[in-house]
C-alpha cells in the first residue's frame, strides 16, 4: 500500500538524498559567491561582465548570494533535514547505546548524531548572530567620547598609540578606552589592541583600524566660524555656505616630492602636509598639498589645517549567540574524534588472527 502524502514528504525531508542535494546546491552557491564580487553597485557588474550578464547576476541575486532569500531557504531546509534526522534517530541511538556493554562502544554510537547536532547549533548560532547581534563602529582621537549606536553606552578614548619597529613597520595599535553606561554612569576601563579585544558590559570592543585626522579652522571674512576635527576622506562644509566643501584627500606625515609624485618618507610627523580638494556645487575647482598652518583661501573663506594626529576606529560587537555557535563547533570536533577514532572494543579484540583489511572494514562500519 502506498504511504500517505505527508509521510512521504516527511520521509523525504529527513532523507540523506535531500541532504546530499542541499549540500551540492550550497556548494554551487558558494562557488558563485566566491567568484562574483559581492555587494557592489550595478555599474560595477556592467563594467565587469556587460549589461546582459550583469542583469542576470542581479536578478538571480548572485551579487549578494549569502544573504539572498534562496540561499537562506537552502540553509533552513538543511537545518530542517538535520533536525528531523536527529530527532528521529535519537531513539535508535539510545537503543543502540543501551545494547552496548563496553563504555567506548556506548560512546562511539553517539558520534554521527552529535556531529549533526553540533552542525545545527553552529548554523543556529551564526544565523541568530547575523540577525540579532549588534555591530557598531566609531572613530575618534584621545579625549573624545563617542556614543555607541543602538546601545546605552558611550566610549571615551583615553589614549591611542601606534608602536613602531625600527624599520617603521607597525608592531601594535593600542587604544586605552573607558566604556560608560550612559544611564547609571558605571564605567569599565581597559586596553583594546589588534588580536586582543576588550570586554565590557557583555560587549566586545576591538581596535579595528586607524588613519590620520587634522583639526581644520574655518574663517569667513577673517572671523573664526568653525573648528572641526576632519579625518582623511571626510569633507568639511562651512555652515554659512553649504555649496562649498573642503575634502581632506590624503595626509603625509613626512612629506617629500619625488619623481613618482608626493609621498611620505616615514610615519613620523617631520614634515606634515595635507592634500585637499575644494568643491563648489559638486564641481572641483582646486586641489593642492599644503603644510600645516598654511592658509587655504577660497574667498571669502580661509581654511587652516593644524594639529594632525592619528585617529582610532573602534568596533563594538554584542553577539550573545556566539556561544551557541562555539558550542556547535566544539561538539562537531568532539563528535568527529568519536566517529573516526573511538573504536568499539570488541572489534579491536578481533584484530588477532584476522586480516587488517577485514578489521578496517568493521571499523569503518562503526563510523
Amino acid at each position, binding site marked *: 500500500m502506498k504511504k500517505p502524502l505527508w509521510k512521504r514528504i516527511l520521509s523525504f525531508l529527513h532523507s*540523506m538524498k535531500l*541532504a*546530499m542535494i542541499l*549540500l*551540492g546546491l*550550497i*556548494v554551487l552557491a*558558494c*562557488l558563485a*559567491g*566566491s*567568484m562574483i*564580487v*559581492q555587494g557592489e553597485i550595478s555599474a560595477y557588474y556592467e563594467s565587469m561582465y556587460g549589461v546582459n550578464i550583469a542583469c542576470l547576476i542581479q536578478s538571480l541575486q548572485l551579487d549578494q548570494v*549569502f544573504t539572498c532569500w534562496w540561499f537562506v531557504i537552502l540553509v533552513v531546509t538543511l537545518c530542517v533535514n538535520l533536525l528531523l534526522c536527529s530527532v528521529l534517530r535519537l531513539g535508535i541511538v539510545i537503543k543502540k547505546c543501551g545494547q552496548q556493554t563496553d563504555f567506548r562502544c556506548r560512546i562511539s554510537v553517539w558520534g554521527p548524531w552529535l556531529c549533526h547536532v553540533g552542525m545545527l547549533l553552529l548554523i543556529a548560532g*551564526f544565523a541568530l548572530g547575523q540577525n540579532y547581534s549588534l*555591530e557598531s563602529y566609531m572613530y575618534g582621537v584621545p579625549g573624545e567620547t563617542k556614543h555607541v549606536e543602538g546601545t546605552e553606552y558611550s566610549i571615551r578614548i583615553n589614549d591611542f598609540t601606534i608602536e613602531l*619597529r625600527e*624599520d617603521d*613597520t*607597525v*608592531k*601594535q*595599535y593600542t587604544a586605552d578606552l573607558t566604556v560608560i553606561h550612559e544611564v547609571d554612569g558605571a564605567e569599565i576601563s581597559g586596553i583594546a*589592541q*589588534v*588580536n*586582543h*579585544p576588550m570586554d565590557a558590559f557583555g560587549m*566586545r570592543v*576591538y581596535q*579595528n583600524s586607524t588613519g590620520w585626522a587634522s583639526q581644520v579652522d574655518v574663517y569667513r571674512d577673517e572671523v573664526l566660524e568653525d573648528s572641526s576635527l576632519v579625518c582623511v576622506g571626510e569633507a568639511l562644509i562651512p555652515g554659512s555656505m553649504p555649496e562649498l566643501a573642503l575634502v581632506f584627500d590624503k595626509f603625509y606625515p613626512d612629506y617629500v616630492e619625488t619623481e613618482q609624485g608626493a609621498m611620505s618618507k616615514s610615519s613620523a610627523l617631520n614634515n606634515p602636509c595635507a592634500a585637499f580638494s575644494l568643491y563648489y556645487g559638486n564641481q572641483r575647482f582646486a586641489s593642492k598639498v599644503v603644510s600645516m598652518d598654511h592658509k587655504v583661501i577660497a574667498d571669502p573663506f580661509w581654511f587652516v589645517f593644524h594639529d594632525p594626529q592619528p585617529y582610532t576606529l573602534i*568596533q563594538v*560587537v554584542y553577539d550573545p549567540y*556566539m556561544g551557541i*555557535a562555539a558550542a556547535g*563547533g*566544539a561538539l*562537531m*570536533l568532539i563528535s*568527529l*574524534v568519536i566517529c*573516526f577514532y573511538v573504536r568499539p572494543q570488541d572489534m579491536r579484540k578481533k584484530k588477532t588472527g584476522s586480516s587488517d*583489511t577485514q578489521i*578496517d*572494514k568493521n571499523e*569503518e562500519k562503526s*563510523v
Partner: protein
Amino acid sequence: MTAEKFALAETILFTAAVMAYLIATVLYFIFFSMKKEWAGKWAGQVMVLGFAVHTLALVVRGVGAGRLPLTNQYEFATSFAWGIALCYLFFMKKYGFRAMGVFVAPVVFLIIGYAAMQSREVNELMPALQSNWLSIHVSTAIISYGSFGVAFGVSMLYLFRGKMAEDEFRRKELPELERLDLISYRAISLGFLFLTLVIVTGAIWAERAWGRYWSWDPKETWSLITWIIYALYLHMRLTKGWRGKKAAWFAVIGFVCVVFTYIGVNTLLPGLHSYA
C-alpha cells in the same frame, strides 16, 4: 648567527630539499613506468632524505625569523609541501608500501616548486598576524592538506592500478584495490577532522582579529566548499556504500579544491587572506 647567515643556510637546505623531491619524483617515475624495483627503493630513501633536509630548512627559517614559519605565501607553501611529505611518510610506515609515493612525490615537488617562486624575504608580522591562534590554525591546515594530498596520491594509484596488467610487479608492489581504497578513506578521515579544526581555529582567530568569526571571505568560502566535498564523500561512502572508482574520483576532486583553496584563492580572488 646573523640574518644573512640564516638566510644562506636556509637557501642551501631548501634547494637541497627541492632537488631531493625532484630526484624522488624521477625515481618513482622510473619505478612505476619501467617497473624497476631498485628505483622504488632509492626513491623512498631520497624522499626521507628530502624530508629531513626540508625539516632543517624550516627550523633554520623559524630560528632566523624568531617565529613559526607559517605566515606568508612562501612559508605556507613550503610548510604545505612538508606536511604532505610528513603524512606520506606516516602512511607509508603504517601501511608499508612505497608505491604510494608515485603520485605523492610529484605533488610535494610541485608545491615546493611553487614555494621556490615566492619571495623568501623574512618580514615582521603585522599586528593581525601576531596570534597563537594563527599558528594553531596554519599548523592544523598543514596536517589536513597533507592528509588530503596522500589521499589524492593513493586514489590516483587506485585509478591507475585498475588499468595495469596483472604481473609480478603489480602483485608485489601494489596493494589490492580494496586496501588502496581503505588507505585513501583513512587519510581523508584524518584530513577531514583536521580541516574542521582548521575552520574552527580560523574562526576563533578571525573573531579576535577582525571582530567576526565568519565573513564569507573567499578563503573561508572555499574551505567550506572543500569541507562539504569531503563531507559528501564520507556520507556517500558510509551510507550509500560508495567505494572504488567513484570514491577515488571524489578524493581527486577534493584535493583539487584543497589546492585551489590555497593557491587559486590567493592569486585569483581578493580577500582578507591575501598575505597567506
